[in-house]
C-alpha cells in the first residue's frame, strides 16, 4: 500500500518502507493518478525548471533510488509509468469511502469516524506543485462533504454522540464553513439538545463577525428558530 496521508511511505506485509527523499514526488505523482502516466509528462510536471533531458534524467534517478530502497511499486517501461496492479493507494481507498457516504450508499462499516484517516484533511502538506495543490484541495473538499454526510447518517441511526463528533471534526477543520456548522446544529437538535445547538450557533456567529465582519445566513438562523418553536421530537 502506498500511503500519502502523513506520508509518503509504503507498507507491505506489515513492514513499513521509508521512501527516499528524491523519489517522494515521483511516487506521489504516479500514485495519485489512477492509470498510466507518460514519462515526459511526469518529468515535465515534476522538474519544470530546466530542460527536458535533465528532467528525464531526474526521473530515471528517482526510479532507481526507489527500487534500490526495496520499494517495487511502479511499473516502468521506456514510455510510461504506472502503479503495479496489486498496489493500493490510501487516498483512493478513502476517496471511495467518502464517495459512498456522499452518495448515500455507505456500507455498515463505513459509518464510523474512525474511517477518516489521520492527515486526510491536509494531503501532502508543504507541497506546492500545482498537481499537489489541486489534489490536496480535492481531497479536503471530499472529506469535508463526507464528514457532513456521515454526521447526518449517524443522526438518522440515532447515534447522536458519533454524529456530533463527525460534525465537530468538520467544523474544527473549517470553522467558517456554514454547511459544517449547519450539520453540527442539526446533530445537536436531532438529539434534542437545543441549548448546545444555540451555543454552537452563537459561537459561529461570533466567529463570523470577528473574522469576516458578516452574519451567518438567514437559513442557519431559521433552523435554530424553527427548532425553538417546535416540540422536541428526537430521542432523549
Amino acid at each position, binding site marked *: 500500500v502506498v500511503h500519502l496521508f502523513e506520508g509518503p511511505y509504503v507498507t507491505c506485509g506489515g513492514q513499513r518502507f521509508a521512501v527516499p527523499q528524491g523519489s517522494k514526488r515521483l511516487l506521489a505523482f504516479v500514485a495519485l493518478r489512477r492509470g498510466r502516466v507518460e514519462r515526459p509528462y511526469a518529468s515535465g510536471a515534476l522538474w519544470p525548471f530546466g530542460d527536458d533531458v535533465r528532467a528525464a534524467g531526474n526521473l530515471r534517478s528517482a526510479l532507481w533510488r526507489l527500487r534500490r530502497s526495496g520499494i517495487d511499486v511502479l511499473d516502468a517501461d521506456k514510455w510510461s509509468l504506472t502503479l503495479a496492479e496489486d498496489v493500493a493507494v490510501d487516498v483512493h481507498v478513502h476517496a471511495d469511502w467518502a464517495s459512498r457516504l456522499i452518495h448515500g450508499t455507505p456500507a455498515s462499516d463505513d459509518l464510523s469516524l474512525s474511517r477518516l484517516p489521520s492527515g486526510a484533511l491536509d494531503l501532502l502538506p508543504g507541497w*506546492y506543485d500545482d498537481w499537489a495543490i489541486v489534489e490536496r484541495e480535492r481531497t479536503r473538499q471530499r472529506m469535508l462533504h463526507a464528514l457532513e454526510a456521515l454526521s447526518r447518517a449517524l443522526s438518522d441511526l440515532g447515534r447522536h454522540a458519533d454524529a456530533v463528533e463527525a460534525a465537530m471534526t468538520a467544523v474544527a477543520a473549517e470553522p467558517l464553513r*456554514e454547511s459544517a456548522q449547519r450539520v453540527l446544529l442539526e446533530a445537536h437538535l436531532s438529539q434534542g439538545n437545543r441549548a448546545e445547538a444555540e451555543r454552537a450557533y452563537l459561537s459561529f456567529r461570533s466567529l463570523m463577525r470577528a473574522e*469576516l465582519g458578516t452574519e451567518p445566513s438567514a437559513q442557519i438562523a431559521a433552523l435554530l428558530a424553527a427548532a425553538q418553536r417546535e416540540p422536541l421530537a428526537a430521542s432523549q
Partner: protein
Amino acid sequence: VSGVSRPQVGVCILRVESAPGQLLITITTNRNLDRNLFSARPELAQRFADPEAAIEVAEEFLRSFG
C-alpha cells in the same frame, strides 16, 4: 521570481466557496519554497467575505517580490 543570486519562489492560493448569501474566500500564502516547491514552514491563511479585501492581500503578496 528569479533574482540574480538566489531564486525566490512563493505561492498564493485563493480558494473561493459560495456560502449562503456570501462568499468565503481563503487566501493561503507561503513565500519560501525550495526548488522542489516544498516548504516546511506553516502557511499563512487569511479569510475574507469581501473580494476587494482578498484582492488587496493577493496584490500585496505579489508586490512583496519586488
